[in-house]
């Protein structure tokens, strides 16, 4: 067993894990943060995406011990303490970017990474390519793409530039 220390949703977390424990298992089974889902065993579906040190990562394809010292943010860490949703969550609601909701935590985390890493604007094409690692069986993606585009001006507090690349 290994002792690890990391920060999860802004709070220090300490856990005892096996070497083989996956980050998603640590989050779900030990820290009881079950918003992060597991949808495949081939690292393809993206239901498990969380933010690790500011990058969107498939938590089913990372060992918990590899997250030693990392800043991890999960879907549970997005809303404000008073329950106000993160703009990305709000836009998923507004634009009906989910149906069954299974892929949604991963979609929201990937969407936030996409918006944050494109401060000069984000095209529909870039959103669609940016979601290659997230599979949704229900929505047909259209409303997910709309939700992410709509979150961009809210997260950057400015209008989306025209024809940004």
């Amino acid at each position, binding site marked *: 067993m*290994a002792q690890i220390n990391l920060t999860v949703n802004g709070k220090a977390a300490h856990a005892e894990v*096996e*070497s*083989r424990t*996956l980050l998603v298992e640590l989050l779900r089974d030990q820290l009881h943060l079950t918003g992060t889902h597991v949808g495949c*065993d*081939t*690292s*393809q579906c*993206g239901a498990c*995406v969380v933010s690790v040190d500011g*990058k*969107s*990562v*498939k938590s*089913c*394809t*990372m*060992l918990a*011990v*590899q997250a030693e010292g990392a800043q991890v943010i999960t879907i549970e860490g997005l809303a404000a303490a008073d329950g106000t949703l993160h703009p990305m969550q709000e836009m998923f609601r507004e634009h009906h970017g989910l149906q069954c909701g299974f892929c949604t935590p991963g979609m929201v985390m*990937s969407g936030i*990474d*996409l918006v944050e890493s494109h401060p000069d604007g984000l095209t529909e094409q870039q959103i669609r390519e*940016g979601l*290659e*690692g*997230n599979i949704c069986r229900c929505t047909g993606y259209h409303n997910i793409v709309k939700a992410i585009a709509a979150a961009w001006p809210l997260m950057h507090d400015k209008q989306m530039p025209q024809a940004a690349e």
Partner: protein
Amino acid sequence: MYDFEYHKPGAIDDAVKALGADAEAKALAGGMTFIPVLKQRLAKPSAVVDLAGLGLTGIRREGNALVIKAMTTHREVAMSSEVASAIPALAELASNIGDRQVRYRGTIGGSLANNDPSACYPSAVLALGATIVTSRRRIAAADYFQGMFTTALEPDELITEVSFPIPEKAAYAKFPNPASRYAMVGVFVAKTAAGARVAVTGAGNDGVFRHAAMEAALDQSFTADALKDVTTPESLMNGDIHAGTAYRAHLVGVMARRAVMACK
């Protein structure tokens, strides 16, 4: 997943020692191939040696070569201005590997050590005549790849960096599997000081290979048109549920012509 001991050494020598001391120990880079393999219990290492603490990331220009350290991620290669100015085809190749999350963690060293027959990097390494630099020697691309999932690496040998001679121009064209994004067929074409080079991944039944007939045709005239009558023997192709041998042989020609047209 079977359990194992986890080590994260801080020096290359210590990592090599940890791998040498235990025949069942395996290195871990980005984990994008290795962790799925562990999850499916297709491997049972006694120890896993994480390479993340060895300082093996970075990209530099060295004379007429572009040198990329083993733990450099696909994302870093895709975003690097150094790569974009020296070998834009390599940045383009990296930017289309898997998906965003795979590119954040997957590494060039891991991809080359694994030598998956449908991985992208092997075609660039072979076409550009790159050198694989390891913890103990330098291996020419031509000697490095030894068939599917097989390389010249010894079990306790680590790739530390890859040195790519800068070509006159080059391009990579890939027909991705729509689900995994791996190459169903990928062709890397380069115009180098030594002549035209064409390396094919995803298609061959023995891993990445050079296409001698296409190279000869491009040496005559470096145009897509020069390739229009060059065929690829079906007997060399891999056939599976994604594509039969005839279709793959056809795609090799299409991707090669696209790559020649995209060369820069």
